[in-house]
């Protein structure tokens, strides 16, 4: 038995050494291409890592290219991006602030995929408004009531950001009776455990070990196959790349759109009923804004959705019109060429629209 135990130890030694090298010697982003991959949580360990990213992290990562074709000759040039996360695992500089008047709930756009910390929508908006803005992203709206800080501090404004394609599949439901209220003693204890630096460090180390980035890196190198020629592109030379291509601009049935309107309206009623201003911020698909370059008819889903939401009394930001105008008239790009997400100009545009709306003391609409 002892002989076998020794042999097992001897055999496993190189594997243990490789894991130790990755976890404790090399930088955390050594085998990853983007900060997102480095910091994203894969295993929550029963809720120990509750947020989408590793908590209390500061990372400056040199990212090359977007998420659509990072290794192509047309990849956008190298860029240092700063990522900072708070104790809850969201992309926010840790601060002693206990209440954020504005919460942005959203997808990877709101989380700042491909952007540096200061370019994030929440940071840009915070600067414009001079108010604390918290990015609850990427997450669905119900996570407000699961966040250890936000769940008991009622904000003044909730901005729900959603990419156009995400609206069709979006989870806009929240538990009936959910409300902002003080945590029980047990909940407080649980959060104390979760936020303890030793627990967080252990959970992050374990998650990094299970993510096995070194192994994934090597596997990706060995098993790499040429990318499918189906990367949707347009233009000559270095093309603009798209996630879904023509498919994204297909017609959406009226009933699907009406169902989305109903759900968003219910959310709006829920929050305004609690005295919170609710703003819906749809982001057009990249394919929508570049429909001409793609050679597809201009999609009308978002335009109709915005009109119907306004009709239903939901406060909604018309990014469709603003994005089209800027792209067509000024010729400025609001999306990275080789990434699905908006760029800093896209963020600035949306933030300007939202801050303009918020400057109006009373909402332009109330849910009917």
């Amino acid at each position, binding site marked *: 038995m002892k002989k*076998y135990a020794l042999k097992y130890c001897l055999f496993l030694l*190189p594997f243990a050494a490789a894991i130790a090298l990755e976890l404790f010697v090399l930088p955390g982003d050594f085998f990853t291409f983007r900060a997102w991959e480095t910091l994203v949580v894969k295993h929550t360990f029963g809720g120990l890592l509750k947020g989408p990213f590793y908590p209390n992290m500061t990372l400056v990562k040199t990212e090359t290219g977007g998420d659509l074709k990072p290794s192509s000759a047309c990849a956008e040039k190298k860029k240092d991006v700063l990522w900072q996360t708070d104790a809850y695992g969201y992309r926010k500089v840790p601060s002693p602030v206990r209440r954020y008047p504005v919460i942005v709930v959203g997808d990877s756009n709101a989380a700042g995929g491909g952007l540096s910390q200061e370019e994030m929508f929440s940071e840009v908006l915070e600067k414009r408004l001079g108010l604390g803005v918290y990015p609850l992203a990427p997450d669905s709206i119900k996570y407000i009531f699961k966040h250890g800080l936000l769940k008991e501090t009622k904000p003044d404004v909730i901005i729900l950001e959603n990419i156009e394609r995400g609206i069709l599949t979006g989870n806009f439901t929240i538990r009936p009776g959910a409300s902002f209220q003080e945590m029980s003693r047990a909940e407080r204890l649980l959060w104390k455990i979760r936020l303890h630096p030793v627990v967080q460090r252990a959970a992050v180390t374990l998650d990094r070990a299970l993510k096995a980035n070194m*192994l994934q890196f090597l*596997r990706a190198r060995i*098993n*790499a196959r040429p990318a499918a020629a189906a990367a949707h592109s347009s233009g000559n030379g270095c093309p603009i790349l798209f996630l879904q291509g023509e498919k994204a601009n297909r017609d959406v049935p009226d009933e699907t759109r009406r169902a989305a309107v109903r759900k968003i309206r219910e959310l709006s009623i829920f929050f305004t009923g609690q005295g919170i201003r609710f703003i819906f911020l749809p982001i057009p698909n990249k394919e929508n804004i570049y429909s001409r370059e793609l050679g597809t008819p201009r999609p009308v889903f978002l335009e109709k959705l915005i009109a119907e939401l306004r009709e239903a009394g939901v406060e909604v930001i018309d990014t469709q019109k603003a994005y089209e105008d800027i792209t067509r008239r000024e010729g400025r790009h609001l999306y990275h060429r080789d990434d699905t997400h908006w760029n800093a100009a896209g963020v600035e545009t949306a933030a300007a629209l939202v801050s303009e709306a918020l400057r109006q003391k009373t909402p332009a609409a109330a849910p009917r």
Partner: protein
Amino acid sequence: MDFYSPEFFAFSLAVLALYFVVPVRLRWVVLLAASYSFYAAFKAAYLGILVFCTLAAYGGALAINRCEARQTRRLMLIAGLVCQLGILGIFKYVNFLDASLGQLLGWGGMAYSGVALTFIVPVGISFYVFQNVSYLVDVYRRDVPAERHPGIFAAYVAFFPKLLSGPIERASQFLPQLSEHSRFDAERFTNGLKLVCWGLFKKLVIAERLAAFVNVVYADPQAYSGVSLALACVFYSFQIYCDFSGYTDIAIGLGQMFGLRLTDNFNRPYSATSISDFWRRWHISLSSWLRDYLYIPLGGNRAGVLRHYLNYLVVFGLCGLWHGASWTFVAWGLLHGFYLVCGRITAKPRAALAAAVGLDRKPAPARCLKILITFILVTLAWIFFRAESLSQAFYILGHLFSGWENLFAAEALGPMLLLTKSRTDLVLAVLSLVFLGVVHALERHENMRRLFAGRPLWARFAFYYVLVAGILLLSPPNAANFIYFQF
């Protein structure tokens, strides 16, 4: 829970630890609880069917055992078999029969809307039903006594490493082991672990690499020339072997780690020198089941020549149907039956031809030729097994020999072979097949375990590192499930 996932192995190790910690008399509880939770993880409703089949077999065998009158025993057996095969029929074949009836009536110009039941076939049902059938028949024949302990019997039926795709264990071989007092044995555990690694290598490194080629061609055979079709067919022969025998190695290896011996299911099947030899080497637990519980009861080779041939066709037609409710599987089975009938009919002329050309005096070339011909026949039959439909299978068969004139044109050969558009894929596929061939060649003379036993530690470690590194680095990120899980 995928059979090759880290979660499955963590689960298996936890069960193993518990198995050797609890008192021997309670080990069946650990096995049964683990097996049932493993099965329920696929779909909780499946568990009800498994429990029903287990209880029916358990009760049926006790009833048969209790009766002395031959007639009553026979009736009990028939009731038990109807129950087991009825469940299999309902879940696996009702929709197939319904669709076939609709097609038949459609050809006759009659309208038939069908019943279209929305069943999901419970995983592993064909395996545990056949196991229960063999148990009932064995009890009826008084080859084994009926098991009185319901828990031990249930653990025999549901033992999780073999539950989904066998081997189809005989009660006489497996049941007594569940009551034996076996202590943890580090050597046996290590040997089991090595077999599990070899199984994983076969599945994740070889079968999955080959699957990339095969899937591309079978998704759109019309787009490929005969060379590509032939390559895909040959690769599929090795893919299905590595896939299924890989699963079996994992199951047998896990069994060994528990101290339980499972039946060997494969013995280098592509070294077979005839189709009957192939069936002695391929899916041995099923072929021996079909021999003992179908072929011999039908009269085997003792009931006249024509009946003998008919028995082949019936047995292999049903063998095909057992694999799946589709005419492609039936065609595959019937083709094997046809091969065997032809083999019998042509035995004498073939021997005379071999003598005439002098092959009978050259055993090595004669053996190679036989192996090659058997492999080609088996590969042609696999086309029906893999094809989506009979028409696709006939299309591939019909175009297998087209476009070979471009074989030596350098610019044409690349696209014909680089089906996944990756040179690395092709190199790794060929290398992994060479590796498999070397291992099998070594195994021809000596069992791998014994072969390695006398070697220095570094040589053994080097081989194991190749296996583990291959599994970790060469397995695709999204491996498909085992082919035989669908049966």
